């Protein structure tokens, strides 16, 4: 189980970086994946991405691969702990969404108010 301080919300950058690494990717690939999946809404700054990757490596949520032998760029992939963290975050986001939708009544009652 994670420490209690690790049960809070993941940042948007971390959540998307973890999602991108269900397949091995290098830094530039992560940035492109996140930009595409968010329809250009989330553009990770290289400094922010670099810091996040290092922290995630330290925590063991992602790991380094050396498979890209042609370009010799470092590739990363999510670990079991990382997958667990993503699942936890999905449950947390589900709770937020279902509570919000229940209060807003699925979006229809907003117009009725």
């Amino acid at each position, binding site marked *: 189980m994670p420490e209690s301080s690790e049960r809070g919300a993941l940042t948007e950058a971390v959540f998307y970086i973890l999602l991108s690494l269900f397949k091995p990717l290098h830094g530039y690939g992560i940035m492109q994946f996140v930009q595409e999946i968010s329809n250009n809404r*989330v553009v990770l700054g290289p400094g922010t991405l670099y810091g996040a990757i290092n922290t995630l490596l330290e925590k063991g949520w992602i790991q380094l691969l050396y498979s890209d032998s042609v370009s010799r760029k470092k590739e990363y992939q999510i670990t079991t702990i990382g997958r667990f963290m993503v699942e936890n975050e999905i449950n947390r986001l589900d709770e937020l969404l279902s509570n919000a939708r229940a209060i807003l009544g699925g979006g229809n009652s907003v117009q009725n108010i």
Partner: protein
Amino acid sequence: MYRTYRLFIDYEKEEYWLNQMAAKGYNLINYFLGLYTFDIEQPGKYIYRIELLDSLPFASSSIRYITFLKEMGIEHISSHFRWVYFRKLATEGPFDIYSDIDSRILHYSRIVKLYGIVGLSNLVISISNFSLWLSEASTLNLKLAPLNLLASFILIFGANSCIKKIRRLKKERQLRE
């Protein structure tokens, strides 16, 4: 080739100026002690960014970081102590080194630490220069003291403006990341 001298204490103003120059076709290729050297090329080709690194550019941690940026299409143009100048082709979309509040706060704190330490040391040196002039009537010390004092004021002013930016970001962080 075009050369000009400038002195900036706020790196974001410097960045703004460099990008205005780039929009006119003046692309920075080197910086050293206030001297900016530009190549004249097509306007609007690059976006420039400045960053204060954690360590000197030739330290292994900095080399790893600069290599990472290079793999993302970011060119390392010039270094000046721990300050580095980067650029990226404007056609490749927006370019910001940091995209969230936490990493921006971290970068500003790095600047506060640097300006704070150098600023306070200048203040101490200035005071000791004044006292040397008083005790030994050394005119060289009298000439140096105001320079140290001026440098310390400028740096402490710079550190303070970063502290204000950090405070603003922390307030914003209570609402969003």
